[in-house]
């Protein structure tokens, strides 16, 4: 079997399209590359959707935590504390079993017990809490002059937020937010190891890498392949966030623009 045939059979295997049976013997490098790459679809799916949706909740949470009214502040503080203070791994397990018992209440909750919806909800809330804390930190360090200038121009309420506070907050938070994004993509590998079942062996990249390592008893091939894929993904994320960063800083003179500096990530 040539490599092209393998790619045709397995490139979309993680979505249930193509050859049903996973390879069982005589594993070729091509099969490992194709299947692990196929699994990356899930990692990208979880990462992109959680990041895009989490961004809005994060802004709301940050505004809530910075609010003076305890009615907004307290829930935001607790939300951040609960999701940042406990391991994501336990959150996945807990959420999965909560969704399982919700299933008995109403069939409306059925999709939540499968990974594509249930794990996405957990990742969405989790990234919202982590980014919310980052945005809150940025809100606290907005230069006083900026808000005073906004007041002097007679801006208030929504237009003050939209034109002055929000862009400044994003600009300050962006380097840390880039880390959070990289972080989140790495966290997506936990999904299929934490209760959420991989139906018909449709798993993510780590799921397939683990499959190969178990079958061949040789970790030195699948895990480096996985590592390669993730390094490429990380570089893409850094590139895209760098573009946004230069757009956010476009009004600054060139010597004051700082290139995005990425610090190493750590597990959550």
């Amino acid at each position, binding site marked *: 079997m040539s490599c092209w045939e393998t790619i045709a059979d397995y490139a979309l295997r993680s979505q249930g399209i193509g050859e049903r049976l996973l390879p069982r013997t005589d594993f070729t490098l091509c099969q490992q590359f194709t299947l692990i790459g196929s699994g990356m679809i899930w990692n990208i799916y979880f990462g992109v959707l959680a990041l895009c949706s989490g961004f809005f909740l994060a802004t709301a949470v940050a505004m809530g935590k910075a609010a003076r009214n305890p009615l907004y502040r307290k829930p935001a503080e607790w939300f951040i504390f609960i999701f940042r203070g*406990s*391991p994501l*791994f336990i959150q996945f*397990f807990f959420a999965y079993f909560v969704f399982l018992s919700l299933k008995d209440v109403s069939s409306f909750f059925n999709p939540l017990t499968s990974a594509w919806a249930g794990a996405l909800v957990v990742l969405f809330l989790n990234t919202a809490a982590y980014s919310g804390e980052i945005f809150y930190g940025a809100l606290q360090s907005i230069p006083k002059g900026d808000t005073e200038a906004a007041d002097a121009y007679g801006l208030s309420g929504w237009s003050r937020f939209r034109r002055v506070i929000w862009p400044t907050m994003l600009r300050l938070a962006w380097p840390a937010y880039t880390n959070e994004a990289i972080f989140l993509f*790495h966290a997506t590998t*936990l999904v299929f190891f934490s209760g959420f079942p991989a139906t018909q062996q449709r798993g993510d990249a780590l799921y397939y890498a683990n499959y190969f390592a178990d079958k061949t008893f040789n970790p030195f091939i699948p895990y480096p392949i996985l590592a390669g894929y993730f390094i490429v993904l990380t570089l893409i994320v850094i590139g895209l966030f760098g573009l946004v960063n230069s757009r956010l800083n476009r009004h600054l003179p060139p010597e004051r623009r700082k290139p995005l500096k990425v610090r190493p990530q750590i597990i*959550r």
Partner: protein
Amino acid sequence: MFSFCSDPAALEGVQWLSCYLTTGKHMSMYWAVGTVLLLLSITAPAALAFGFAGASAARSNVAPLRWIGKTYIAVVRGIPDIAFFLFFVIALDQAFEYIRHRIKCPDWDAAVRQGNDFIVCAAAKLPLGNAPQWVHEVYGFMLAVLTFAIVFGAFAANVLFGAMRAVPKGQLETAEAYGMNHRQTFWRILVPQMWVYALPGLSNLWMVLIKATPLLFLLGVEDIVYWARELGGAKQPRFTDYPHPDWRMWYFAALLVFYLCFTKVSEVVLDRIMARLTHGQATAAGEAQRKAAA
């Protein structure tokens, strides 16, 4: 556990619960909490040692040593940590067996890797085939500790490397002006001063380490996640004196609360240590403390 527990079927309410929560299997779960604490207490210093070695290597004058140190730090960027955990547990196990194989069976001529099998001679097996169960468990736990130490050592190396660079250049130049050689400058001037700069990063790392402990489950250790799944599942009256429906949700809620408390307590303690260490230091935090007092 208690005297009234002899007939569980007749019990109700608090009494039933107190008996249920003190069954032998629950005791194993509480022991598993001890496993987590043991892991933390071994891993934290080990990771610090790995980190210190890595950071010192990364700023070494010897080029190959520097490359090793920098690669060690850089490799944790960009790759999910769970992949490291899954990788190292198998890789370390095979590496140990392979080394023992080379030493103990020098005249073995078959290849070690045959297709999908990894075959070493019987004397090189780790742990030995006839070893008791507890040796297997201890060996598994040791592998997990080593894996944690390697992965977190890289994070610690990164923190310490940054801290070493944060020590003001003038301090090191003064040391050299006094005629200290490279080694003396490192041990007498750099190392004692770097801890203040390293502490915020290290305390962050400690929190992360706490939150990484449930990953022990993935390494095949019978930890609290294992027991929560085991004990929480629905139990039929036929097999147990304490039948109950699926309670895994509650078990994991308890774990969630346990970790929240643990991180909260750590946070408070670390803040206190930080406040004590920054006292009188010429850093921004020390300055803020001085101003607040004045």
